[in-house]
């Protein structure tokens, strides 16, 4: 007797037509049982997601896999495909290289590790989920086992965390418990209040900076207003970069504010904002050499420095203090 999950009895005697009809199921079973090579449940569920196993029937999937099923994962496009026997292969490219030709062929997970280490300018990438993955390469028709290895280096732990989230079992650790857990030089980050943590998240954890989707908040009762992003896989707790930067901001936030007096033309005041924006957005290097219309243009900034820096190479400005404070400061 031959039957499938989607039909009742196909036939009660073997013939070519019946075998042809059940072939997709048999091939599918054969692939996942003997060929796949990925045994960890999270990895297998990820592979099934790549071919939409939850929403398509086996024959539909086999048909779709012949032309390829694409999934976005961070800056990657992962395309699952299958040959006539149901053997899956996976092609991974940078999302911006979907239709590019002449790409450098890569093959192993260790190739992915090297790829993830430096950006297009050759700078070290301490955060693998930063949107700075370089382009120009392809993993073409690799096995499932290699795919899971490649993803493991390009977006470490993204598969198990995605899998836990799918099962409503993602173990989120919010800022407060993360801060309270720290010891040594990071113990001080507990001092940062919810407002400062809001600023930290807006600084580090938005989509322009990190492709993980922030799921942690200040604490379970105090959500952060800033958008957590739209990433395919979650961020379950403040990462080591956020903790290390948080330490710096903790020490900086210990200083009390002062009111400063500084003399600037309105255009120079606007220029300060332009410079801050260009550095914060990482666009300063893109401003053309002779584009003196841009406040953050190098010549414009050099001119401002010539004009407004004092003998100590600092912006000429001084804290505006009342007479009493100035005297106290002077004689203590």
């Amino acid at each position: 007797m031959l039957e499938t999950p989607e039909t009742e009895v196909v036939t009660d005697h073997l013939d070519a037509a019946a075998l042809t009809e059940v072939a997709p199921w048999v091939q599918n079973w054969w692939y996942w049982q003997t060929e796949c090579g990925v045994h960890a449940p999270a990895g297998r569920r990820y592979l099934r997601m790549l071919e939409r196993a939850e929403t398509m029937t086996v024959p539909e999937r086999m048909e779709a896999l012949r032309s390829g099923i694409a999934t976005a994962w961070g800056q990657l496009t992962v395309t699952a495909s299958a040959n006539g026997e149901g053997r899956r292969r996976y092609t991974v490219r940078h999302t911006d290289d979907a239709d590019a030709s002449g790409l450098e062929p890569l093959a192993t997970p260790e190739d992915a590790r090297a790829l993830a280490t430096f950006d297009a300018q050759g700078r070290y990438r301490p955060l693998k989920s930063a949107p700075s993955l370089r382009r120009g390469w392809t993993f073409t028709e690799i096995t499932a086992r290699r795919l899971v290895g490649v993803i493991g280096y390009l977006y470490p732990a993204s598969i198990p965390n995605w899998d836990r989230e799918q099962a409503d079992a993602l173990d989120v650790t919010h800022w407060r418990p993360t801060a309270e857990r720290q010891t040594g030089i990071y113990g001080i980050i507990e001092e940062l209040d919810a407002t400062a943590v809001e600023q930290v998240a807006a600084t580090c954890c938005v989509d322009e900076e990190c492709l993980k989707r922030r799921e942690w908040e200040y604490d379970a009762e105090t959500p952060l207003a800033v958008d957590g992003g739209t990433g395919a896989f979650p961020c379950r707790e403040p990462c080591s970069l956020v903790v290390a930067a948080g330490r710096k901001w903790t020490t900086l936030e210990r200083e009390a504010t002062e009111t400063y007096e500084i003399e600037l033309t309105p255009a120079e005041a606007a220029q300060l904002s332009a410079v801050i924006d260009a550095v914060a957005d990482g666009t300063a290097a893109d401003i053309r050499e002779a584009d003196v219309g841009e406040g953050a243009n190098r010549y414009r900034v050099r001119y401002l420095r010539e004009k407004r820096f004092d003998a100590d190479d600092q912006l000429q400005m001084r804290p505006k203090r009342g007479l009493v404070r100035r005297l106290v400061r002077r004689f203590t």
Partner: protein
Amino acid sequence: MQALVIVAHGSHLNPDSAAPTYAHADTIRETGVFDVVQTGFWKEEPSLREVLRTVGTEEVYVVPLFISEGYFTEQVIPRELRLEGWDVSAWDSDGLSATTATLPAADTGQTIHYCGPVGTHPAMTDVIIQRAETVTGDPEIGPGMGLAVVGHGTERNANSAKAIEYHAQRIRDRDRFDEVQALYMDEEPEVDDVTEFFESEEVVVVPLFIADGFHTQEDIPEDMGLTDDYREGYPVPASVDGHRIYYSGAVGTEPLMAEVILERAADAGADVGTARAEVTAAAGAAARGD
């Protein structure tokens, strides 16, 4: 099914920090004795918090790629791995003798064999000697030579210096080098004055550090007077105060380190088959430049 997870410090700033960890993981992966060989970091990814969930086995051998027992191996790593019920007494160590403790991981339920750091394993002594052979290009190195084993040292933790002194004494006991000294960056006797501690004209200096970075490539070469400016590099050997100094860079980059990692896992009960011999042979060939 058994997995090996090598945990290390890593860096937000320096890609060389993780390089030896990756290299040794690759070497061990090649032997095929573990179903999975994974790396996890304090400062890189996967983080110590998330590395165990990337490994789909019930049984995991965790080997810290650290030099001594101390803050990281006793507090940070067990805490971040969520080793349930961890207390440093589980190692029953005198500061040098930690082998393993078996505990469950709270978030994954895996059984974790948490090993002592590579730096205190007796096999590390051989790595220091092989490092000396590599930097001099002489497999018989020893007679007529001095050897300095250099540690970070810290007044805060006596175990840091213990590991350095332990290996220095073991090498001394072999009577292979004319003189062996333990020197430190941050405590006496200081590596800055290296030539004052040796009568031998030729001295090999091996820093007991896991990775090359700020300390081994900037501080120590400048402090010893091998170079005025680390950015220009340093000669090997370098002439300092009438001595010839062979400075090896971090011992942790020596391929034989992979064997110490296997020793740690084997001591904790991992089945490593013939992998130790394979790795040792490959490391020896690399040291000879084959």
